[in-house]
């Protein structure tokens, strides 16, 4: 597929474009065909499409898209006859571990979105690629906590990798249902930096759109793999980055995204290698919620 020619790369755009690359640069045609009046969000670094919509029309892609979505719809309909979440009931009852994401090929990287503070004008870089033997993923890059000179940003220096929310047929919203589990199990190999794991549950429009449940991930940095098991009862609620006084446990029936964030104010290179992200049911863990749930300033 030929790259679009009608883009003129200014030096700034080229710099932004080199901030993060998940895969070799491929024009996002699926974003292009909907971008009729430039209404859809264009990530900094992505080139602006100046070709009109009628020139970008591709019948073959349209047919492929229809086939894909109708196949998903048919599977959704038929899986209803099998059992909850398309699996037999016995499997649902007996399930104690489930690997959600494992990196076994280039298509597994498409399920993740990488971003860093270069979106707000910072100078960090983050890249995602497959690790050795195509069995792991490697998130690497450089943190730079110099704030962008736009007069209003005071802090900078973060990068994040977040899973894309699951989508059903015709891009309908689906959620992960992890009520049978109570622990997040990761196998990672870090560089000693303190990361943060963010779980994004389903929110209701503008009411809770910035709500996120977070916990820390301290990596060891050695050549040995690290098995991290974090119970979901340990995740605390924060909104727009501020930890809330009124804490609530994470409800596991509608999980949208899981993400890793690095923002430890230490400039320099970083890397995190992930083997898999799984959930498991640790029956020895009986804690419901790790933080105080009672009212701390009760009015008498």
């Amino acid at each position, binding site marked *: 597929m030929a790259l679009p020619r009608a883009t003129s790369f200014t030096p700034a755009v080229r710099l932004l474009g080199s901030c993060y690359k998940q895969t070799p640069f491929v024009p996002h045609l699926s974003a292009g065909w909907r971008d009729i009046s430039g209404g859809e969000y264009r990530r900094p670094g992505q080139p602006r499409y100046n070709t009109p919509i009628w020139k970008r029309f591709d019948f073959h892609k349209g047919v492929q898209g229809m086939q894909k979505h109708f196949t998903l719809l048919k599977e959704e309909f038929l899986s209803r006859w099998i059992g909850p979440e398309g699996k037999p*009931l016995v499997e649902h009852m007996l399930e104690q571990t489930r690997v959600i994401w494992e990196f076994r090929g280039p298509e597994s990287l498409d399920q993740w979105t990488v971003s860093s503070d270069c979106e707000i004008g910072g100078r960090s870089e983050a890249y995602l690629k497959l690790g050795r033997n195509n069995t792991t993923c490697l998130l690497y890059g450089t943190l730079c906590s110099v704030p962008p000179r736009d007069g209003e940003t005071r802090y900078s220096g973060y990068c994040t990798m977040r899973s894309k929310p699951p989508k059903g047929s015709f891009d309908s919203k689906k959620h992960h249902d992890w009520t049978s589990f109570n622990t997040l199990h990761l196998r990672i190999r870090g560089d000693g930096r303190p990361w943060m794991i963010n779980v994004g549950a389903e929110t209701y429009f503008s*009411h809770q759109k910035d709500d996120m449940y977070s916990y820390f991930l301290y990596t060891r940095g050695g050549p040995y793999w690290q098995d991290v098991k974090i119970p979901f009862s340990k995740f605390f609620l924060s909104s727009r980055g501020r930890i809330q006084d009124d804490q609530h446990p994470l409800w596991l029936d509608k999980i949208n995204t899981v993400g890793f964030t690095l923002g430890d104010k230490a400039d320099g290179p970083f890397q995190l290698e992930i083997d898999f992200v799984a959930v498991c049911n640790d029956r020895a863990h009986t804690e419901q919620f790790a933080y105080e749930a009672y009212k701390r300033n009760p009015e008498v």
Partner: protein
Amino acid sequence: MSPYVFTLLIFNLGLGTTMTFASSHWLLAWMGLEINTLAIIPLMTRQHHPRAVEATTKYFLTQATAAALILFASTSNAWLTGEWAINQMSHPLATSTIMLALALKLGLAPVHFWMPEVIQGLDLTTGLVLSTWQKLAPFALLLQVSSTVNPLILTLIGLLSTLIGGWGGLNQTQLRKILAYSSIAHLGWMVLIIQFSPPLATLSLLIYIIMTTSAFLTFKLTSSTTMNALATSWTKSPMMTSLATLILLSLAGLPPLTGFMPKWLILQELVKQDLPMLAFFAAMTALLSLYFYLRLCYTVALTSSPNTITMLTPWRLNPTQTSPLNPLTTMLTLALLPLTPAILALVIY
């Protein structure tokens, strides 16, 4: 929540329903419904959990829409016919709109979509109030207008509700959503028969309330909100778990449990009214509901879920409630069927 505020809200909950019961004017009935809605909103957000707030917002929006529709229909009827009385509604536009509004209030298909989400976001006690008490006032209005509504609309709504209540609950693993779909299905049965025999619809509602109360309270006692949690509750309290099984079968409408009574009487009445095909379809849709209730019983009682504890009753639950409501409703849920002739004599004839 301050006990004074809590008492006030509970009082207003009762006041709203009573006002709607006692009213013959649409405005007073609408006011009662609004008081009901406004009283339960703070009760739903007692926990301030984001999901509870979401459920409350969704509930408020749907109920406010329904109340606005009721007001619109009643004022249209007053404009077109000059009548404000509830049982004097005669204009077809008004009666159809009011039926749609009451369907939205009750959570009947095709406007049932809010019900599972709202009940899933609440704790079991508030879900119980939503499934039982909040149905009384709109049902009272439905009883009064059912004679004037187009019978086809009632039949379609009823049949669609039983179908969707059965279909939607098929692959659910969350108990609250299962009870929400069960509510949709049971209300569908009531709406089917309300045009032929309103006392029978009232009896069905009463028995549904008893069964749902016992179901919710049993789940609360075993602290189970998912299928897996209920399946592993046999170690906590084998008696409650076996009762939960029987309560679910009663909700499914299996004899010799109480839940069979309304289904049997409704099917009998439909056949008496020369509608055997409608009775057939209603019974077929009840099979869908029966499937997911039986599946719950299968996971609870007929299989032994994986559990690290291999001995029975390793600990005893501290009794968290001292009221006799759970034993009373459970007993009524399981043992009322032999009293059917007496109930018929008292209620219907």
